[in-house]
């Protein structure tokens, strides 16, 4: 039976000007994911929430005091899919094309909900609004027939080497 793990991740959202976010220094244990020109998420292990918030807040206080730094961890639940089985499950719930590069950050609809995908080596973290946790779990059951979804959350594990270089999917150039 396939199994899907629920992961606990800290999500610190930074809202600032594009220039300020471009220069936000990376954190060794957090992934910098650019949601929009004026919004950047730091996704980190949950035990580093305070540190990550501080890192972002201090940077903003120095460079752009009007920026907003919010702990959005509570708003999202993370389902972690693994390997080819994970890709097979995701392909049934999402028409979003996945890039070949790793790490990567992709945004789009999964099972109809607005999801963020953090693609790491052999692992895909699917973040959906926490209001959809039952819906996603039910859809995973639908497409797998039977699947074991962990009832407790495991803290996010980051890879020091790659976390600093993760960025949003490179913008396709529009003519």
């Amino acid at each position, binding site marked *: 039976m396939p199994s899907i793990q629920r992961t606990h991740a800290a999500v610190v959202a930074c809202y600032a000007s594009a220039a300020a976010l471009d220069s936000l220094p990376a954190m060794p244990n957090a992934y910098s994911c650019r949601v*929009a020109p004026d919004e950047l998420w730091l996704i980190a292990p949950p035990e580093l929430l305070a540190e990550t918030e501080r890192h972002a807040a201090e940077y903003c206080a120095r460079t752009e005091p009007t920026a907003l730094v919010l702990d959005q961890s509570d708003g999202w639940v993370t389902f972690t899919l693994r390997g080819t089985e994970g890709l097979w499950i995701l392909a049934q719930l999402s028409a979003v094309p996945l890039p070949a590069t790793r790490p990567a950050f992709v945004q789009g609809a999964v099972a109809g909900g607005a999801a963020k995908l953090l693609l790491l080596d052999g692992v895909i973290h699917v973040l959906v609004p926490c209001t959809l946790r039952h819906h996603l779990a039910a859809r995973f059951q639908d497409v797998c027939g039977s699947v074991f979804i962990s009832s407790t959350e495991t803290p996010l594990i980051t890879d020091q080497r790659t976390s600093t270089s993760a960025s949003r999917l490179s913008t*396709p150039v529009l*003519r």
Partner: protein
Amino acid sequence: MALKVTCPHCGAREYTEFWFGGEGLSHASSGAQSAERLEEDFRRVWLKTNAAGVQVERWFHHAGCRRWLEIKRDTLTNDFHGRA
């Protein structure tokens, strides 16, 4: 229909990930009140051009970055011609 809209932040996605925001920039102008402005605003809100050809339009990527994008689309062929 499986129209694909290219969001500049997220990439090409199915149109169901977006809300269509209408042609052009349909907002009322700001500034002094006047009879001319009332009529101008009324025309802009209610009377659309509905061009058969390339038009500027807005889409909101609700399933992704949740930002507005302005693009040019040919209403006859559904070809997208990049950002407005």
